[in-house]
């Protein structure tokens, strides 16, 4: 659809003094009150910069200040904060185009943070802002436009007939707001943040961040997927936020040492060009390269995380995707990312839904999507996976939450809890992608079974027990979520450390804090509780740092120096850590030791935990996995890996399985594994400087420099209450 900017009704506008980035910072943030359409700016103090660094740190700080302990996801004061970080936007070092989005999540009630590519974040930064707060609720459907070259912010009324789905909406807005839509460079200067129809009917709504792809002559989208930020966006009646900025160059960040930024970037570019084909093949397959690796190690979720391996796994292996993904294109989500994992399937013909028969570009699939809406639903048809991928994106629905929810529904179907009467006629047998996608279409339309399904597994597990008489414990056991957020797509049963990596997290079970399965399960490098606790301290802290800077995690360890294995602690990829420290110094002009890097993260990580505490969460009880994530729930699940579990019973539990019934063995295994997890919590909380109930101690907050009076007051009140 073609949309003329002049035809849009301008509601209000305001000019702002164009800023200028100095050494990676604008030292000010933008606040938009959607209800009053008031625009204001806030200075970034030296103290805020020192304590919170940027990106997710700034986002959480602004969100904390804007909300109260009583604030819910749909309270007007809840915000969506998009924040970048000092390294964000440099064009030399691969993976430097990320922005971090935070909000109080409709799924968990606590802050969610989502790391997203696309051009919006860097453009917003070069438009003069280190972060943008969207607060309040608009009275009518609104499009916000930020013109970074002019120093202008405009509020438009979104026309009633504008398409709601992202692939059409972002395309139309990119053309409408380009200075000259016939010029590819002008189209590339526009970036759009939008949701989709699905986000209006489900708490698992996401935000799509666009980039204009000059070669495809159309928009692509990257997702701030987790935790329902798209749902908050639509609740605020924002249709889209558009940013235009033209003029990005090698030193838009005004780096302290631009030649050093070049040197570091070129060093990694060369490493990628040389090694990627022998390592992860990100340039050809993206994250889908993981498929067969996970299947081989019994880690690829199938049938709602019941199993980790299936003989049909190779039907959706990396080589299958490589043939479908278009090759020889620089598919980075920001300039200068030679790891280029943002692949797409082009000219994909849809078989269902409102766009049936049309040919579209499918962004992906990422590993998480191929596993989540593929193997985990027992769908091994690449077409079905791609079709669900496309519709999730354009409807603004998180593929991970949708996949894990759908797998739960399919298991309930298998268990006889659901039938066609309860699903409004949809067959949810394993592998039926047309059934899964019908749920998605209904969800987007806000009708029939889709509305119920879209509420996520926390709600559904309780609902099925209460309304359909399902076994309440079983429902709890197989509903893969923590804090209300669906688990992402790795089997964690055989790695105690990864159970912690998923569930001892601030936002819920997402793999971006720690991925320890190989270290723990395969290589047995962290055998003791103390070893695991150290890993569950170091890796979440280290990986938090990417979110403070506006960086992507993938160029850290999805490409490695050829001699990485020869270094001590190769899992930390020490040479790349050195790159990051040097890059930070080259941009900000400030030195940073490895310990200081961890400390920057530790401050923000503990602030986020304290934020959870402030909102009434952050208790030990909030950090337990459902048992499906820890071990075999059902007897057939045990029997499928009987040899392994029996061996563990003999060697680890010290009980002879001979002569015991399967039910007895399931019970013994469960008791043992649950106790192990409890011991892990004790060790991890201790290492992190928290109480046994998971609250940061005032002493620890003082030690790391996160001793703000308002934070101390929260944890002191909680600890006093616990006592």
């Amino acid at each position: 659809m073609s949309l003329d900017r002049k035809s849009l009704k301008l509601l209000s506008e305001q000019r702002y003094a164009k800023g200028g980035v100095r050494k990676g910072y604008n030292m000010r943030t933008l606040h938009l009150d959607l209800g009053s359409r008031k625009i204001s700016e806030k200075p970034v103090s030296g103290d805020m910069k020192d304590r919170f660094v940027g990106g997710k740190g700034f986002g959480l700080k602004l969100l904390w200040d804007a909300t109260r302990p009583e604030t819910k996801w749909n309270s007007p004061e809840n915000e969506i904060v998009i924040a970048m970080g000092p390294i964000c936007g440099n064009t030399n070092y691969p993976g430097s185009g990320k922005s971090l989005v935070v909000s109080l999540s409709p799924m968990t009630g606590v802050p969610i943070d989502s790391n997203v590519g696309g051009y919006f974040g860097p453009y917003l930064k070069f438009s003069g802002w280190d972060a943008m707060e969207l607060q309040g609720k608009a009275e009518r459907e609104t499009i916000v436009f930020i013109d970074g070259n002019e120093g202008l912010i405009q509020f438009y009324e979104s026309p009633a007939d504008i398409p709601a789905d992202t692939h059409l909406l972002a395309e139309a807005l990119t053309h409408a707001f380009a200075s000259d839509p016939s010029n590819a460079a002008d189209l590339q200067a526009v970036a759009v943040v939008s949701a989709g129809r699905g986000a209006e009917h489900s708490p698992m709504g996401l935000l799509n961040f666009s980039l204009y792809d000059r070669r495809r002559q159309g928009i692509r989208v990257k997702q701030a997927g987790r935790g329902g930020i798209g749902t908050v966006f639509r609740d605020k009646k924002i249709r889209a936020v558009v940013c235009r900025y033209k003029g990005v160059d090698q030193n838009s960040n005004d780096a302290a040492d631009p030649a050093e930024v070049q040197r570091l970037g070129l060093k990694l570019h060369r490493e990628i060009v040389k090694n990627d084909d022998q390592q992860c093949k990100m340039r050809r397959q993206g994250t889908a390269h993981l498929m067969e690796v996970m299947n081989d190690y019994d880690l690829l979720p199938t049938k709602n995380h019941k199993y980790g391996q299936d003989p049909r796994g190779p039907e959706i292996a990396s080589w299958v995707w490589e043939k479908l993904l278009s090759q020889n294109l620089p598919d980075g989500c920001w300039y200068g990312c030679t790891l280029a994992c943002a692949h797409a399937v082009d000219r994909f013909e849809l078989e269902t839904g409102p766009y049936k028969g049309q040919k579209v570009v499918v962004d992906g699939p990422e590993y998480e999507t191929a596993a989540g809406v593929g193997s985990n639903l027992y769908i091994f048809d690449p077409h079905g996976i791609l079709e669900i991928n496309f519709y999730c994106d354009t409807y603004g629905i998180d593929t991970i939450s949708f996949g894990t929810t759908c797998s739960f529904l399919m298991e309930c179907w298998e268990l006889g809890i659901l039938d066609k009467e309860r699903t409004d006629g949809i067959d949810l047998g394993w592998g039926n992608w047309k059934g899964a996608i019908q749920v998605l279409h209904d969800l987007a339309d806000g009708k029939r079974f889709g509305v119920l399904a879209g509420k996520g597994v926390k709600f559904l597990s309780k609902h099925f027990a209460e309304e359909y008489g399902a076994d309440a414990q079983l429902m709890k056991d197989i509903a893969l979520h923590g804090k209300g957020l669906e688990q992402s797509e790795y089997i964690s049963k055989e790695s105690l450390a990864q159970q912690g990596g998923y569930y001892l997290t601030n936002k819920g079970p997402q793999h971006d804090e720690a991925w320890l399965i190989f270290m723990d399960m395969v290589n047995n490098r962290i055998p003791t509780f103390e070893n695991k606790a150290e890993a569950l301290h170091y890796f979440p802290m280290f990986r938090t740092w990417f979110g403070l800077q506006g960086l992507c995690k993938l160029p850290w360890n999805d490409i490695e120096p050829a001699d990485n294995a020869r270094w001590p602690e190769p899992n930390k990829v020490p040479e790349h850590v050195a790159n990051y420290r040097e890059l930070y110094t080259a941009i900000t002009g400030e030195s940073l030791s490895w310990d200081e890097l961890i400390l920057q993260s530790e401050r923000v990580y503990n602030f986020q935990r304290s934020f959870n505490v402030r909102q009434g969460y952050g208790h030990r009880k909030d950090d337990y996995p459902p048992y499906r994530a820890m071990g075999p729930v059902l007897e057939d699940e045990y029997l499928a890996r009987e040899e392994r579990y029996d061996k563990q019973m003999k060697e680890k539990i010290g009980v002879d399985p001979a002569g015991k019934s399967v039910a007895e063995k399931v019970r013994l295994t469960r008791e043992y594994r649950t106790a192990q997890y409890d011991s892990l919590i004790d060790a991890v909380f201790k290492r992190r400087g928290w109480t046994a109930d998971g609250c940061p101690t005032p002493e620890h907050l003082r030690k790391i420099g996160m001793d703000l009076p308002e934070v101390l007051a929260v944890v002191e009140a909680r600890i006093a209450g616990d006592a």
Partner: protein
Amino acid sequence: MIKYLKTDDEKCVGCMTCTAVCSKLFFKEDNPAKSSIQVVGLGAGKFHLVACDQECRKCVAECPTQAITVAKTGVVLVNKSLCVGCLACVAVCPIEAMRFFPAMKSPFKCTACGSCVPHCPKGALEIAEKEESPASRVWAEAIARVRKEGTV
């Protein structure tokens, strides 16, 4: 056809006249590091001349802003106004013919302008033409496969 700077290592004596001509023409200084033709000493009086062969076009395929294009003459050109200075092109160049200078915002390369040719005292340089190879078309074929014709 592709126009390019043809080099003959056998004739080169390493006098650096070509680098002086090139860097003075484009950067107003005699600085071999700012020359689009490189003279690499191999020892024993031998030299290797490096200038873009205009043929592989890996840089054209890699550029995120399509700042690197192929002219009608077949010569590969960098458009500085579109370039964001990421240096991905420098990394993918198999012969290090895409050059950059520290803190300079854009890379540079030989454009087969021929200015150095008459100055070479040994006749090691000439502007020549050659046929396109299959590699020369990979970037264009990749685009043709994903262009939107037929899509919504």
